[in-house]
């Protein structure tokens, strides 16, 4: 049970809303020391894992200068203006379309974007622009809600249709795991059984973004009543 000590540190830390970085580092050190490693050994392990995984930061660090420069020249405003021409667009429809596009490309193992490269510069401004045209007003709350759903569209589109046509990630990992465990599975079966959830996710997205549009409409109507 002492092995789980670090996990309890993590759970308690997140429950108390302590800084997540502090929680994670404290949890790692607790786990390592509880497992019998010396403090310096644990620090060296943290250093090694950090070095091995620091490429996770690359897409963000190299992307933000591009986005920052373009935003100074009105990128978000331009995107919002473009979407205003599409009269059928709503925040929800924009996000559903992006989720579909993200899902279809990830079926082929391709990634067209992430939060830094697509959502902040293009998708969130599009959805916000569409909502502004529809309701004529915007509030910080509805702005935050649209942006949170834009991040959700990216994640949901990314996760649930991985590898269905061309396997590059998750399904290969599953296959490798079963191979190592001596259980025979065919990659084509794994692809087949990924399909129902991928289709279901499209429906779930349709439901969630419709609800988002309805909430935005209601908030806008309420705002108009308050300020005649």
């Amino acid at each position, binding site marked *: 049970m002492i*092995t*789980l000590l*670090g*996990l309890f540190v*993590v759970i308690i830390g997140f429950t108390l809303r302590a800084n997540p*970085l*502090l929680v*994670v*580092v404290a949890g790692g050190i607790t786990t390592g020391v509880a497992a019998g490693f010396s403090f310096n050994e644990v*620090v*060296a*392990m*943290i*250093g*090694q*894992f950090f*070095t091995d995984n*620091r490429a*996770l*930061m*690359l*897409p*963000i*660090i190299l992307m933000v*200068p*591009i*986005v920052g*420069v*373009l935003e*100074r*020249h*009105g*990128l978000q*405003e*331009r995107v919002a*203006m473009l979407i205003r021409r599409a009269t059928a667009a709503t925040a929800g429809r924009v996000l559903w379309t992006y989720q579909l596009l993200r899902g279809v490309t990830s079926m082929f193992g391709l990634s*067209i974007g992430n939060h830094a*490269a697509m*959502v*902040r510069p293009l998708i969130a401004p599009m959805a916000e622009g569409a909502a502004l045209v529809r309701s004529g007003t915007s509030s910080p709350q509805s702005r*935050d*809600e649209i942006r949170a759903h834009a991040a*959700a569209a*990216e*994640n*949901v589109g990314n*996760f649930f249709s991985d590898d269905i046509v061309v396997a590059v990630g*998750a399904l290969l990992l*599953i296959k490798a*795991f079963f191979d190592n*465990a001596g*259980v025979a*599975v065919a990659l084509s*079966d*794994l692809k*087949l*059984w990924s399909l129902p959830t991928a289709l*279901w*996710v499209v429906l*779930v997205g349709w439901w969630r973004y419709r609800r988002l549009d309805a909430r935005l409409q209601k908030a806008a109507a309420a705002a108009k009543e308050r300020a005649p």
Partner: protein
Amino acid sequence: MTLLTLDLFLVGCGVVLAAVSALVAWDVTHPQRWGSAVFWLLLAVAVGLGKWLPPMAVGYAVLGLTILVATKRVGAPQFARVDSAVLTKRAEVLGNRLLWPVLWVPVVAIVGGAGLDWVKFGDVSLVNPTQVAQSALGLGCVVGLAAALRTTGERPLVAAREGGRLLQLLSWSLILPAMLAALGGIMAKAGVGGVIAGLVATALPVQFPLVAVVAYCGGMVLFTVLLGNAFAAFPVMTLGVGLPCIVQTHGGDPAVMGTLGMLSGYCGTLVTPMAANFNIVPARLLELKDDYAVIKAQAPFAGAIWLFNVGVMYGCVY
């Protein structure tokens, strides 16, 4: 011999971070000037030169970052917002040309990811075949930055300043994903996964087929929530619960079980702060007031998708 290694792009990241540090140190009005300058400098060294430093030195650097953050010595100044009307005016000048640099990034990343490993000059290859995707993305960012500077006519210093503004919004959340990978690695070395899988298997009546399916899919969620990574949860739960309780006891189909089990794990990814790069980093990048706003928006998705996965698995696995 390889021309564009991933390490080269990471040195580039280190240069960007060092520039941010210098700009912070230069700014006399910065509220947490020295703490922040040290934070970005330490991170620049750890990211840019990490491969050539002893792991313990990187470890202590990361510990230093954590202490600076925990004692609230790292922050971002109040950035003056350019008025939206001014930006709309500026947007009219460049029009759609503003979009191209952003679109160049995925185009170069996808095309390069498919073809760059074929490029060779004699026995010197352009990219390392095992790092094609990441190298192509790095190359895409370099192309995008060049295009952005050319289109707007700005100097590189402006790119560093504007990039630094966004990086300071991210602050500690930028290194959280790498630290979570470290936590997962240490937990794997300590054998945490086996203990949890054992607990799930002994605490529940898994002799009933439905209970076995719910225990496996629920365990995937629980474990993904705790570790922040479905890939880390999968081998543990499948060895500890899936294979013994579903395949061996009830003769379940491993392909159905494995696929839907992994997809159940993703539902956990949608609702955990431990999956920082998917949930916490975007909340900060999009300047949301609540760090948990993305998780809250995703919770109904996760619930609906998880129930569907359990239903399909129960209906088809046996």
